C-alpha cells in the first residue's frame, strides 16, 4: 500500500518535472491575478494592505482550482487511470498520493511565492509567517476538495467551468479561515484559532476526501 503510494507519487512528480511549464502556468496565473487587483482598486497603500490577505487567498483559490483539471485528465486520456482502477492498490490511497503529488507541484510553489505578492501589497513583515503557514495548511485542503470535483467532472463537456461551480462554494471555509488568520495578526491578535481550524480541516479532508475521490473516479470511468 505504501509502496503503491510512493510509486504514484514518484511517477506523477517525474511527469511534471519532464514538463515543468504546465505547473508554472498556474503559478504565473496566481501572480497575474494578484497583480491585477491594484490596477482595479487603486494603488493606495493602506487600501492594499487591508485587502492583501483576502486577495492573495482568493488568487490562491483560483490558481489551485485552475490546475485541478490537470489532475486526472491526462491519465484518463491515455488509459493509465483505468489501469489504476483495476490495480490491487486501494484506490483511496492512490487518489491521496495523486493529490499529494499535485499539491507538491502546484500548492507548495504558491506558498513559496506568496511572500513576494505580500511584498507588492506592502504587507507588514510579521504577517509573512502566518500567511505562509495558512497557505501551507490550506492549499492541501483545496487540493483534496478540488480533486473530488475534478474526478466527478472527468471527461464532461465544459468540465472547466462546471468544476468551478462545484468546487468554489466548498472552498469558502478555507478562504475565510486562511484570510482570517492573517487579518487576526494584522489586528494584533493571535491567529491560533484559525490556524488550528485549518489544520483540523486538513486532517478531516485528508482522511475522508480520498475515498470520495475514489468513488467519483469509479463513477466517472465505468
Amino acid at each position: 500500500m505504501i509502496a503503491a503510494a510512493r510509486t504514484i507519487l514518484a511517477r506523477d512528480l517525474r511527469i511534471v518535472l519532464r514538463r515543468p511549464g504546465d505547473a508554472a502556468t498556474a503559478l504565473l496565473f496566481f501572480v497575474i491575478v494578484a497583480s491585477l487587483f491594484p490596477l482595479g482598486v487603486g494603488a493606495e497603500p493602506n487600501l492594499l494592505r487591508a485587502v492583501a490577505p483576502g486577495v492573495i487567498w482568493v488568487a490562491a483559490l483560483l490558481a489551485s482550482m485552475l490546475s485541478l483539471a490537470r489532475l486526472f485528465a491526462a491519465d484518463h486520456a491515455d488509459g493509465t487511470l483505468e489501469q489504476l482502477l483495476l490495480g490491487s492498490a486501494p484506490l483511496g490511497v492512490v487518489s491521496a498520493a495523486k493529490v499529494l503529488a499535485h499539491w507538491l507541484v502546484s500548492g507548495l510553489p504558491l506558498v513559496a511565492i506568496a511572500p513576494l505578492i505580500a511584498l507588492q501589497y506592502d504587507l507588514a513583515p510579521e504577517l509573512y509567517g502566518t500567511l505562509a503557514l495558512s497557505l501551507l495548511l490550506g492549499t492541501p485542503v483545496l487540493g483534496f476538495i478540488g480533486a473530488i470535483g475534478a474526478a466527478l467532472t472527468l471527461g464532461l463537456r465544459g468540465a472547466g467551468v462546471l468544476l468551478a461551480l462545484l468546487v468554489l462554494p466548498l472552498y469558502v471555509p478555507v478562504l475565510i479561515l486562511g484570510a482570517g488568520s492573517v487579518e487576526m495578526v494584522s489586528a494584533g491578535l493571535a491567529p491560533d484559532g484559525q490556524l488550528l481550524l485549518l489544520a483540523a480541516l486538513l486532517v478531516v479532508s485528508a482522511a475522508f476526501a480520498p475515498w470520495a475521490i475514489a468513488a467519483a473516479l469509479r463513477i466517472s470511468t465505468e
Partner: protein
Amino acid sequence: MSTAIRWFWFASPQTFYPLAGAIARVSAVGAALLVAAGLYVGFFVAPTDAQQGEVYRVIFIHVPAAWMSMFLYVVMAFWAAIGLAFNTRLSAMMASAIAPTGALFTFVALWTGALWGRPTWGTYWVWDARLTSELILLFLYLGFMALQAAIDDARRADRAGAVLAIVGVVNVPIIYYSVQWWNTLHQGASVSLTRAPSMASTMLAGMLLMALAFWLYSIAATLARVRCIIRERA
C-alpha cells in the same frame, strides 16, 4: 417484516408512479388550502409589528422558505446517499427531483430577504452570516443541478450527483459556522438581526401554517417532477 416488503415494493419506479401521482394531488390541494389559511392569518389576523410596521409580514414567506431551503438539501442528500448505497434508481430520481424545489426556496428566501432588508435596514443586501450562507447554499444547489445536467448518461448523473450532494451536506455546517465566524470578525455593518424576542402567538401560527404549506408544496412538486423523470427514462 411486511412494512419492509412494502418499502421495496414502492422502490420500483413502475409501482411508485401511480402512488406518487395520488400523493402529489392530495399534497397540492393541502398546500393550496394551507397557503390560503397561512396568508389569511399573516395578512389579517397577525398584529402589526411595533417596530417594523406592516413590512415585517414578509416573514410569513421568508422564514418558512429559508427553513425549507436548508431542510430540502438534507433530504436531497439523504435520497442521494440511499441511492448510492442500495443502488435504487428511484432514490436517485428523488434527489434530482428535489433539487429544483430546494433551489427555488433558497432563491425565494434570498429575494424576500432583500425586499425585507430594503425598508428595514436601508439596503437590499448585507453580508450577514445568514444571507451569505444562504447564497452559498444556492450555489451548492445550482452546482448539483449543473453537474447532473452536464452528464448525458442517467446512471452516471445520478451517482455523480449523489457524491456531490453527500460532500455538500458534510460541508454545509462547516460553511455555515465559518461564515458566521467571519461575520463576527468583520463587524462592519451596524445591522442587528435579532428579532423581537416575544413573538405574538398568531404570528407564530401564521408562520407554522406557511411552513406546513411549503412542506406540502415541496412534496407535490417533487413527486410531480419525479413522475416526469420516470417517464423520461422509461
